[in-house]
């Protein structure tokens, strides 16, 4: 019986799928059918996959002439090898047309509750699952088709060019799937992750490439879909970065460096190191705060050592002040480098990478590591043992800002700020710049990240400091929970900075609702900021130039409709209270001194409105950058903020030069702009504390979801739509750093 219908464009695929199914089902291999596994799916008559339809193929066809059922040469897929097939072969006679390579497409994804229905991220926790989003609209050739889904150990482009054979990393091998039809909505598949190994030596994440093997030939071949061939992995399968890493650790509990450059009473160090890690290990130095102790950071020392770092925590001369503390920071670093080979009987000899150093400082120590970098930058401190380039990142935990703009300045070093919203000491209070940690963060001009933890206080980030919690009753998360956040975010930052670990980068910018360490409780609220190095981002508007509200940094027009009180200026709370008054539009933005320069925009609304940025032609191609990002914070104690507490939502719309739009509600990506921590003080009435800037990073590839004629390569405007049907009914937002990120 002949099948109804004629041959369609998928004949070759269907034919081969049937053959493979047959072989597997029968459990036998027929020599006559073996060659069919070579068939070129892009050139159906090319039965031997030689790149041409020629006599050899004709021989195969004639050899099967009259065959019925599963037969080689049944090009019409009607169950018979006959004149119809011969006609198709002759029509295709000659060299096959050039075939396109397998397409590099995003596959690994998380599903979203609203359009674009999926976000093609790369990092996944190994206690969860991996979504596979094959958008039927973008890849119609795959829609509805059976395929094999392969998970292959991450290969470089060169490795893929040299070896296209697929080898599945899972014990059970590739997974049969049916690519979804219709819409991606509700059709994100789940990767079978059974047996998938997470982590790779020091690296918490192991990279895998994903292949949708549409012709099911076990080879990456034209027509297949791949995620991860063109650089980076298709996805990263990640261990718990809040948990101990792969190495066992040991400790030199107290070592006296006896250095003439360090005052006698400040010469002790505690050293944590991995005992079984191969090769040279980077250095992490920890500088404690005032009244703190170098022995108070075992949680962090052991954690980082277990992930392959040699950690040195030293006595820090904080009581006289920051300059004194900075001397101990820079000199202990030098002493450690100079003496490590003999410490502990030589256990570190030949095992320390003195060219990779991270500095971590807490409170006054956080300022001392920042000032230490500034001194290296300015040349007021030099060392024969290390230099500016060896400091790969600086991490400040609730630092003070005694020294101000010129000296408490991270310059372009990758910089991280870790801060607890209930800090009762370096409180972020409006009456003193010294207590405003974010001043230092705003001065950082390189890659930078902040982790802002609700319910954590200053001394939650060490073992033994006084309970300084200053927040709403019942919101304290305690030191164990705070330290789980600290361990994860610090590890992610150091690995991103030292090793360009892109798997870890997602822990620095994805909304906490979307990605957090496995060991971090889901009930902890964490607000994240991330800004890449200027070399990898182009500002559409960062408010630093073209200071009129009608012109963006990039020179395009800015048009505001329906919103009120739009201004841009230095983002500096100008009085000493957090009480909302119209004369202090930057209320809560304790992020600048008057000598600083970080500007931002702010506006509010109680009805539908929008702000539209015209995109200059030089930036109009959004198809190349990876993301469109911005940061925003709710206005502290503003009536619109307090009238309806919650994460604040809005819609971002891109319009191409043909007038076609794509819009995404930022809440879809994980909660929107965080509801302010409900801390009181420095004013009366409504509560709320310092501005909690949060980065929203929209992956531009997500906006292709659903296909269509929308043209990412020619974007005319970016619009923030607020109120009405586009998000929160009312609100006040501080906004900044509208960037295209590569």
């Amino acid at each position, binding site marked *: 019986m002949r099948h109804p219908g004629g041959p369609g464009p998928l004949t070759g695929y269907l034919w081969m799928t049937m053959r493979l199914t047959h072989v597997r089902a029968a459990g036998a291999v027929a020599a006559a059918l073996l060659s069919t596994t070579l068939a070129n799916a892009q050139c159906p008559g090319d039965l031997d996959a030689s790149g041409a339809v020629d006599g050899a193929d004709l021989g195969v066809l004639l050899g099967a002439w009259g065959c019925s059922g599963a037969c080689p040469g049944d090009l019409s897929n009607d169950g018979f090898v006959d004149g119809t097939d011969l006609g198709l072969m002759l029509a295709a006679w000659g060299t096959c047309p050039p075939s396109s390579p397998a397409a590099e497409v995003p596959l690994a994804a998380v599903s979203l509750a609203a359009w674009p229905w999926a976000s093609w991220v790369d990092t996944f926790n190994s206690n969860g699952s991996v979504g596979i989003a094959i958008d039927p609209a973008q890849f119609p050739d795959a829609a509805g088709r059976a395929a094999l889904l392969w998970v292959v150990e991450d290969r470089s482009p060169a490795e893929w060019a040299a070896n296209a054979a697929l080898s599945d990393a899972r014990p059970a091998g590739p997974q049969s799937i049916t690519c979804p039809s219709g819409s991606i909505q509700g059709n994100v598949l789940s990767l079978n992750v059974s047996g998938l190994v997470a982590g790779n030596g020091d690296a918490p994440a192991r990279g895998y490439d994903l292949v949708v093997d549409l012709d099911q030939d076990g080879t990456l071949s034209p027509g297949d879909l791949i995620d991860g061939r063109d650089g980076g992995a298709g996805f990263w399968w990640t261990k718990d970065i809040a948990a101990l890493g792969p190495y066992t650790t040991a400790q030199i509990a107290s070592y006296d460096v006896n250095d003439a450059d360090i005052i006698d009473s400040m010469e002790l160090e505690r050293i944590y190191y991995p005992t079984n890690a191969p090769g040279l290990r980077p250095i992490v130095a920890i500088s404690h705060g005032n009244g703190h102790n170098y022995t108070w950071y075992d949680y962090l020392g052991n954690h980082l050592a277990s992930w392959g770092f040699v950690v040195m925590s030293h006595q820090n001369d904080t009581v006289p002040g920051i*300059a004194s503390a900075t001397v101990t920071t820079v000199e202990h670093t030098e002493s450690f480098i100079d003496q490590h080979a003999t410490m502990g009987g030589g256990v570190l000899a030949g095992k320390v990478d003195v060219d990779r150093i991270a500095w971590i400082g807490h*409170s006054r120590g956080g300022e001392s590591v920042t000032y230490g970098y500034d001194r290296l930058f300015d040349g007021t401190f030099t060392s024969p043992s290390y230099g500016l380039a060896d400091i790969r990142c600086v991490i400040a935990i609730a630092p003070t800002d005694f020294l101000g703009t010129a000296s408490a300045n991270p310059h372009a070093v990758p910089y991280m700020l870790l801060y607890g919203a209930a800090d009762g000491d370096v409180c972020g209070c409006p009456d003193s710049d010294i207590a405003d940690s974010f001043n230092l963060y705003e001065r950082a001009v390189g890659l930078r990240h902040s982790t802002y933890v609700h319910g954590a206080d200053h001394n939650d980030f060490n073992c033994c400091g006084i309970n300084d*919690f200053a927040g709403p009753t019942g919101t304290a998360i305690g030191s164990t929970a705070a330290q789980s956040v600290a361990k994860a975010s610090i590890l992610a930052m150091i690995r991103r900075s030292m090793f360009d670990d892109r798997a870890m980068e997602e822990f620095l910018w994805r909304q906490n609702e979307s990605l957090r360490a496995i060991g971090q409780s889901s009930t902890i609220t964490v607000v994240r900021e991330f800004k890449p190095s200027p070399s990898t981002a182009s500002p559409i508007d960062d408010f630093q130039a073209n200071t009129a509200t009608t012109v963006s940094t990039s020179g395009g027009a800015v048009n505001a409709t329906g919103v009120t009180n739009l201004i841009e200026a230095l983002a500096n709370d100008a009085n000493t209270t957090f009480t909302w008054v119209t004369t202090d539009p930057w209320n809560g933005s304790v992020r600048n001194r008057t000598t600083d320069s970080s500007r931002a925009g702010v506006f509010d609304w109680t009805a539908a409105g929008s702000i539209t940025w015209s995109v200059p032609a030089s930036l109009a191609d959004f198809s190349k950058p990876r993301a469109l990002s911005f940061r925003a914070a709710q206005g502290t104690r503003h009536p619109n903020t307090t009238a309806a507490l919650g994460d604040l939502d809005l819609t971002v719309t891109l319009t191409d030069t043909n007038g076609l739009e794509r819009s995404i509600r930022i809440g879809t990506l994980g909660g929107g702009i965080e509801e302010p921590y409900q801390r009181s003080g420095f004013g009366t009435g409504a509560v709320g504390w310092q501005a909690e800037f949060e980065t929203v990073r929209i992956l531009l590839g997500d906006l292709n979801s659903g296909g269509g004629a929308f043209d990412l390569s020619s974007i005319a405007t970016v619009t923030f739509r607020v109120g009405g049907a586009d998000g929160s009914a009312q609100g006040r937002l501080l906004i900044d750093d509208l960037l295209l990120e590569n």
Partner: protein
Amino acid sequence: MTTFLAALALATVPPSIPAPAPERPAAAPPTQAPSDLAPIPATPAAPIAIVAVQPFTIAQPYTHRFRKDGSEFATGHLIVLRAEAGLVQPRQVAEPVLCVGSQTAERLWSDPAKGLIVAIVPTWTERTADGTERPGDPAVDLVYFATPELPERVDATWIAAERARAEAALAGGTLRKAASREVVRHARLDAASQDALITRAAELLPDPSIR
């Protein structure tokens, strides 16, 4: 080659991001938990009492880091003070600078619960009313907590201004000089080094458990 059944592959739930929680109406502000970190009292302030004083010498002089214009010293006093917690508590923001006469003190240890501070006061000179000079004595001269600042940033001019404020407050009755009637005067300590001095200073503490 082994394959899974498609049905099995779809049996697990793909990762997803939850929809945002709805906003909620404003409610009464939550109760704020009190911090254990005592607020800083107004300055100038005085200790409650001078508990102990011990003159010392050290064989290896070292630089007094608790003032911008500090110089090397080889003699001075160890002192133990009792003060209210807000003055004793170490903190990251500026602390009231501990001064004795025209000298700043180096805070060594503190115990807010017991209200104790142990400090080093390098030798300084006091000018008397008749214009002559005498060595300063912590058991006699004014001990006070000055304006919060980093000690490494203060100099003689700053100290003089703070001292004048303290003396004015004393004269005006808003500052009460620390009690020193029961001060324990120890015999001179001759230490070899800063480390040795600090170690011996611990012996001044009335309760060893706070060391």
